[in-house]
């Protein structure tokens, strides 16, 4: 069924990357009869291939091509070559993700207006709002099968959740439940029901969790309009003298450089690779990189305010059993500057297996203070804290011309400094997270530093005004009319919520726009 397109076919839409943004966009376009070639740096991994083992799975799926880091964030010290934990595979990071699928709150679309002037932050309102996004969110929730939306019931709570819920209620939190998850909670749908296996971060072997890799990509291929080429790493986007893009150069599975022509190019390589690709596509006409007349490509990198709290109890919890992200407290997600920061954060249960706990609980730590924590692994519960971080112009992806990847291309350097608002929010979140567990009798708690980034946003941001960002409200670049950005790098601001539902909703909306504009002969 898979449609094979010719390299010289200049009627196709080329989508770069097949994750939350690209995988969904490619399928949605194919469903509308548009011819699509999706180029994906990673290989194909289906549920039967996934491995219930943290490091083996990391080796199978993670993006481990070289990157470099700078800035005051602790990740630059602890994991200097691994600024992000993201995936190189058909399906992108939706292979690894936990499945938490939350809509932005209304005010978060208008962060600049709501939060006012925050020193050092480059806040901006999105050029779209909650009303505009509402129908697209509904389509996204239906596609992903999000629990507690539509007629889908919530998942049952596991041990980790039950501890968390008890603490939350004891503290007086009201909005605590097993989350809105892109994980099937009953047997009535096309995917299997969650078997409470754990290992959601290693790829769901039951296929109960949504992934673009085994849901959207095959659905698109079945239309006969989509060709996905795995092991195809795009090196450069090409353009003509009129300043329109004409195709892409990519390294195929054998390392040979190929050229695929295109009518439209959509970039969806996640927030490091997408700006890197635009910057690596500089030419005499676009010396600062493609679509970069604003000098905004790569800037305003956001990774969410994150951190974790683990707690030890005097009795077993066995937090690793069942869904990795098994529940949420949303009471702190509101904007309430009386807490000493703007924006809000979510608290979500999280569990790591013993191998990852050893690596991430307190990277670099050793000795008995550390090992007695692991001794109590069976009695641990854990949560992840995720909140809105402030965009800053200097938090930025640039090209590091001193380091090349396996294809000889300059790698991305990721610079990040915490904003004082991020630090104030993290401290508040640590305090509240510890309080939740203290309320259930924790004997010891650990305010755990951020892991390598899993949410990467903002480096090609959406703006009303072409000077403030890289793309317009459709994800179309301000500078090049047939070049689009289709992943999390479009985010104007990050909001408190996990980003993927919004990435998917934007991709569905963008597909609708592109198909319409193509039909009208406008692009």
């Amino acid at each position, binding site marked *: 069924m898979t449609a094979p397109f010719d390299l010289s076919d200049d009627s196709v839409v080329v989508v770069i990357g097949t994750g939350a943004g690209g995988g969904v966009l490619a399928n949605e376009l194919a469903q509308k009869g548009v011819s699509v070639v999706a180029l994906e740096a990673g290989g194909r991994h289906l549920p039967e291939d996934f491995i*219930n083992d943290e490091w083996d799975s990391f080796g199978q799926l993670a993006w481990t091509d070289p990157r470099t880091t700078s800035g005051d964030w602790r990740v630059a010290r602890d994991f200097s070559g691994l600024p992000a934990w993201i995936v190189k595979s058909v399906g992108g990071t939706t292979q690894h993700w936990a499945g938490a699928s939350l809509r932005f709150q209304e005010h978060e679309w208008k962060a600049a207006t709501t939060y006012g002037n925050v020193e050092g932050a480059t806040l901006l309102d999105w050029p779209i709002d909650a009303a505009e996004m509402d129908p697209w969110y509904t389509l996204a929730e239906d596609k992903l099968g999000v629990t507690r939306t539509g007629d889908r019931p919530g998942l049952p709570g596991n041990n980790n959740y039950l501890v968390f819920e008890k603490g939350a209620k004891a503290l007086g939190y009201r909005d605590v439940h097993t989350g809105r998850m892109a994980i099937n909670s009953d047997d009535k749908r096309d995917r299997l029901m969650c078997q409470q296996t754990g290992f959601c971060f290693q790829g769901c072997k039951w296929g109960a969790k949504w992934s673009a890799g085994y849901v959207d990509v095959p659905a698109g291929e079945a239309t006969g309009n989509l060709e996905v080429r795995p092991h195809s790493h795009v090196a450069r986007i090409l353009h003509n003298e009129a300043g329109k893009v004409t195709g892409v150069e990519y390294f195929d599975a054998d390392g040979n450089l190929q050229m695929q022509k295109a009518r439209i190019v959509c970039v969806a390589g996640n927030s490091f690779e997408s700006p890197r690709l635009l910057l690596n596509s500089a030419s005499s006409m676009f010396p600062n990189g493609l679509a970069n007349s604003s000098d905004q490509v790569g800037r305003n990198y956001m990774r969410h305010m994150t951190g974790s709290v683990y707690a030890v109890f005097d009795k077993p919890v*066995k937090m690793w*059993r069942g869904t990795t992200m098994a529940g949420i407290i949303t009471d702190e997600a509101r904007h309430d500057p009386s807490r000493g920061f703007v924006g809000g954060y979510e608290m979500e249960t999280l569990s790591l297996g013993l191998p990852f706990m050893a690596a991430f609980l307190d990277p670099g730590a050793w000795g008995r203070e550390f090992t007695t924590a692991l001794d109590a692994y069976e009695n641990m519960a854990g949560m992840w804290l995720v909140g809105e971080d402030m965009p800053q112009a200097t938090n930025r992806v640039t090209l590091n011309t001193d380091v090349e990847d396996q294809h000889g291309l300059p790698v991305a350097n990721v610079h990040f400094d915490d904003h004082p608002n991020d630090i104030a929010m993290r401290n508040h979140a640590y305090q509240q997270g510890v309080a939740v567990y203290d309320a259930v009798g924790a004997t010891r708690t650990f305010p755990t530093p951020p892991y390598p980034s899993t949410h990467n946003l903002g480096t090609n941001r959406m703006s009303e005004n072409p000077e403030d960002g890289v793309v317009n409200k459709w994800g179309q670049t301000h500078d090049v009319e047939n070049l689009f950005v289709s992943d999390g790098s479009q985010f104007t601001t990050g909001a408190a919520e996990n980003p993927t539902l919004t990435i998917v909703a934007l991709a569905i909306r963008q597909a609708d726009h592109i198909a319409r504009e193509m039909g009208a002969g406008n692009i």
Partner: protein
Amino acid sequence: MPEKVRPKGLTRRQLLSRSTAAGGSFVVGAGFLAAPNGAWAMETAALKPETMAALVQMARDIYPHDQVGDEYYVIAVKGYDTADAAEGIEAGIAKLNAAAQAAGHDSYLSMGWERDRVDILRAMEDDPFFQQIRGGLVTGLYNQKAVWPIFGYEGASFEQGGYIDRGFNDINWL
């Protein structure tokens, strides 16, 4: 998965008779290192056996888990017993011993208290040798499937059908 070190067919008496004192909780002989009770033994290829013994002790002092036997620490550092790695490891352990001697002990292994050995390690925490050993242990020790049950961790669950019928919500003390 790393293979488990096994006694090489030596009896406890044979082991002890062929060994020289090394201090610490090891028996060291020509080209081998063993547990005093004969529970495990390993032959060394490129490293001096006393160097290997010190390295195993160092590994335990970095990530001490009293319920985890020496054999797992041996497995965690065994990979350094190669021609390529040996020079760096011998030099690193020599530094440890020199620091121990400066503190009035015969050697790192002869220091009876963990506290004293840890003082030596703290002082060389930023040394690349220390960082190499510590960094390697994060996976070398904790990614051994055989140690997981000691911590209660159950590992892969797909083959058993997940936990949906095996206690994902069996907590009973809340």
